[in-house]
């Protein structure tokens, strides 16, 4: 593990938004908040594995939220992460229907930050559920789409990463892969439900 880089809350958000070498701010988050938040979640009934998984999901949610221009630092990042983690764990517990546990542990004493982040989390629930659809694509498709839309590589750069003849071949392949993904997305019941809600 590389040496720890220090970020203030503002610097951390700025580093995430910059999106260059995201690993450093991510590692900083793990180094500074993982243990504390995992213990916190375990105290709320999560197993060690569940706590680590919820923390991982918390980091994904936080990065996603922090990248949005609408995100403002009203609370300290530690407080914000705690609220996000608690909401995610709350939803997990809800799914598992541990009703009595939920009532005892959560409904009492939800603070303002938790209430504030809950709408972010509800939005993310659907994304999280549908994320797995990306893995219905074959690996070459996933790779092209991730290199283009996440790593922001040009077609020319992608040709250097993947065994395709030229930029045009990659461009055609990328279009087909995206069309395939949208067809999978459209046929997902959650997406159909979303359309129905809109139409009603």
């Amino acid at each position: 593990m590389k040496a720890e880089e220090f970020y203030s809350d503002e610097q951390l958000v700025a580093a995430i938004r910059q999106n260059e070498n995201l690993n450093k701010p991510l590692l900083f988050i793990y180094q500074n908040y993982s243990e504390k938040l995992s213990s916190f979640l375990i105290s709320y009934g999560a197993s060690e594995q569940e706590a680590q998984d919820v923390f991982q999901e918390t980091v994904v949610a936080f990065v996603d939220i922090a990248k949005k221009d609408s995100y403002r630092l009203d609370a300290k990042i530690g407080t914000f992460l705690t609220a996000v983690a608690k909401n995610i764990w709350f939803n997990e517990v809800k799914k598992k229907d541990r009703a009595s546990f939920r009532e005892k542990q959560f409904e009492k004493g939800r603070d303002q930050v938790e209430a504030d982040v809950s709408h972010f989390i509800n939005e993310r629930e659907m994304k999280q559920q549908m994320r797995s659809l990306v893995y219905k694509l074959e690996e070459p498709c996933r790779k092209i789409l991730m290199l283009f839309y996440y790593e922001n590589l040009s077609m020319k750069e992608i040709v250097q990463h993947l065994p395709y003849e030229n930029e045009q071949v990659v461009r055609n392949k990328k279009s087909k892969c995206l069309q395939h993904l949208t067809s999978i997305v459209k046929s997902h019941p959650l997406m159909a439900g979303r359309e129905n809600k809109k139409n009603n």
Partner: protein
Amino acid sequence: MSHSKEEILIDYLDNRLEGAERLEAEQLIREDATAAQEMETLLFSVNLIREAALLEQVMDVRKEFSSGAKVVPFQKKEGGAVVKSFSKNFLRIAAMVLLLLGAGGVYKYSATTSSSVYNENFASFDLETSRGANNDGELEKAYRSQNWTSVKNIFSTQKEKTIKSWFLAGMADMELKNYATAIGSFKEVINQNKNSDAYYQDEAEYYLALAYLGANQSGEGLALLKKIRNDKDHLYYKKARAIPALDLKMLELKK
């Protein structure tokens, strides 16, 4: 939505259109409700790609953090006689604990193999609980009576091989420990699913991962298991999650 309109929307999404072409695309989205909806789905899909890629990056960092966190550097503390004596005892105990942990670790490392993980996690596929149980053919009957060689023979004589028969033939090979042949059959299921509904897809992926482990191809097996362990919608998510992470880590180190 016509193919060409879809291409236009993708080009617009990728910021490849300029001038009149760009204006035309914008007009299309404004005036054609289907196009507007298609655009929204495209944007949503791209968000999912970014989300999946971000998750992969976070998982890599988690892995790096977890492996690094085990190495805690010892910091020598300066202090008086009492502290020194405590430190000595503490170090002795710590050394013993480390020795025991080390011995346990060495044992675990040497005892964990692709075959051991396979043996601990392979369970026969129960056709009774599967879909289509009422449309039994000869192959299914042979499978239910666990006559694996017969399953193979019937399969080899079938003129039209269905996805289900490929899968059951693969399972028969798993039972007969013909892992290489099983791998071929499960790959065929996955391959045929590209052009049809995802029939036996999740089953084929999970058993393909186990077949790879049985065949000592741990790299391929681990990659598939990783995919299943990250997909909460996967039918075998819980089974894949039930495999101890330490065992998978050991296999990864041995690759």
